[in-house]
């Protein structure tokens, strides 16, 4: 009995339960965010196309006694994600007869797992009551994210292959080669950042930005003007940011690069043969990958949870907790803003041709990223 009590008071137990709580909280927030990103996507796209989008499925306020019909334009449609989820869950889960069953079943899970696991190393807030708001603070965060997201390929390959049908297979092959091609540019493009900061730990990268201004906007610090070296370093960082963002679009199969899905050519790409919740898992995986990517961009380039004038949550007592929560809010606001940017781009640009895609990846982005590394190395050697 005593042993149990002792365990309950130990640091280990504290760590375990805080980690579990953080994981659960983050997962909840992110999955909620996913569903509302889908909603936002539909609303924004319709607004950009002079439509209204889903504005009907509101919360049934009248059941709660609110009879005010005029709220429906405001709250209308906010229930759409729930309705979608219910629909997807209740739909007939159809498994075609000719598929390779085991792989057909495991593929969607693999697809979403990779996206969710990468979230573990992203610092989504400063700290609350001394607990750092990151699930796993490991020293090689970005590498970990690249490693895990490279595993996402398996979901796609297996989905395409196990469906035993030509369109999914073509989609899977395209998707895989696209992911592998752009992973190079993705990985190389952030190297300049690490050259400048000298750390691979995401938390320390955020702290660096809190002290020296955001990487992309070096002017944003409390009462400090950017130094000369920061201004010089800004050029490679800008290139890095552009390449990273473009590669991230490609990695998440978002629209200028959505070749794997390419409805007009491949029906639905690798998930053509999927329906119901298995399809929804791919869908969720894709949007989770978007959130992970945006979080990474925010963390690396745009100061993560930091915003000028808002202190971090390290102070004691309730103001600390409050500010910690505010920091988390700032982080997710930034992520959401970036997601909106993702959506803007998606509904603006047409799709690339496949050869253009490959050319862009291998001839432009890869080389630009490489040259950028040398440029940064020179700058770091001579200026920094």
């Amino acid at each position: 009995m005593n042993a149990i009590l002792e365990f309950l008071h130990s640091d280990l137990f504290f760590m375990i339960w805080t980690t579990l709580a953080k994981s659960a909280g983050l997962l909840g927030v992110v999955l909620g965010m996913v569903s509302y990103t889908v909603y936002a996507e539909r609303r924004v796209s319709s607004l950009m196309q002079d439509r209204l989008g889903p504005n009907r499925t509101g919360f049934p306020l009248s059941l709660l006694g609110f009879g005010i019909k005029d709220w429906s334009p405001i709250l209308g449609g906010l229930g759409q994600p729930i309705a979608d989820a219910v629909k997807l869950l209740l739909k007939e889960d159809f498994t075609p007869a000719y598929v390779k069953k085991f792989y057909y079943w495991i593929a969607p899970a693999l697809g979403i797992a990779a996206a969710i696991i990468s979230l573990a190393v992203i610092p989504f807030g400063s700290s609350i009551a001394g607990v750092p708001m990151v699930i796993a603070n490991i020293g090689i965060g970005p590498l970990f994210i690249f490693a895990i997201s490279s595993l996402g390929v398996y979901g796609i390959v297996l989905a395409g292959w196990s469906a035993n049908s030509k369109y999914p297979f073509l989609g899977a092959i395209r998707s895989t080669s696209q992911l592998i091609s752009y992973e190079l540019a993705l990985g190389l493009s952030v190297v300049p950042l690490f050259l400048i900061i000298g750390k691979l730990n995401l938390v320390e990268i955020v702290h660096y930005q809190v002290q020296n201004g955001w990487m992309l906007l070096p002017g944003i610090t409390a009462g400090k003007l950017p130094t000369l070296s920061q201004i010089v370093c800004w050029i490679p960082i800008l290139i890095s940011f552009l390449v990273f963002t473009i590669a991230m679009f490609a990695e998440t199969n978002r629209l200028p690069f959505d070749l794997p899905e390419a409805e007009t050519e491949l029906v639905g790409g690798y998930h053509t043969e999927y329906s119901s919740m298995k399809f929804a898992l791919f869908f969720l995986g894709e949007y989770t990958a978007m959130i992970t990517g945006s979080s990474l961009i925010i963390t690396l380039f745009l100061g993560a949870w930091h915003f000028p004038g808002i202190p971090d949550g390290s102070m004691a007592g309730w103001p600390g907790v409050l500010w910690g929560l505010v920091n988390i809010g700032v982080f997710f606001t930034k992520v959401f803003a970036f997601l909106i940017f993702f959506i803007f781009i998606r509904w603006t640009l047409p799709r690339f041709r496949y050869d253009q895609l490959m050319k862009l990846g291998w001839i432009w982005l890869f080389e630009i990223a490489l040259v950028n590394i040398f440029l940064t190395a020179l700058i770091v050697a001579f200026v920094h």
Partner: protein
Amino acid sequence: MSPILFWIFTALMLGFGAATLINRNPVASALSLVVSLLGLSALFFSLDAYFIGVIQILVYAGAVMVLFLFIIMLLDLKAEQRRQLSLPVLLGGAAVTALFVTQIVLVVRSFHAGNQSFPPLASKFDDASNIGNMLFSHYNLPFQVIGVLILVASIGVVVLSKRELN
């Protein structure tokens, strides 16, 4: 790392390693190998080799095994037919493997220095930058040689996979 986790990951690694060999479907073999390698990288993490562990995932699981899967799908390999294993090969293989295992066990048991626990590590050390420093100072030549090797390998692959070799 606690012994429980060590044995869990070991079991995972060895079990899926065995599954790689036992499965008759090449895709299943490849996927088992991926899991086995993930278990191995977990063991790397347990040995505080975070960078190597992540590289292991990135290179092996992320690239090499995808290549394997690709090739399997490209060649459209079906599950092998159950074949009669020739007895001498089976016996010979099993015998040599068994000899090898006993040998390993004997050697490891007689290696008393290895029964000590691992030395303690500093609470915080920067794995990646240590390796980077080492790579660009002491191991610079091998590093560049490896670069050339990879270049040669990629050219070789392109040449080999052309349909007509003139």
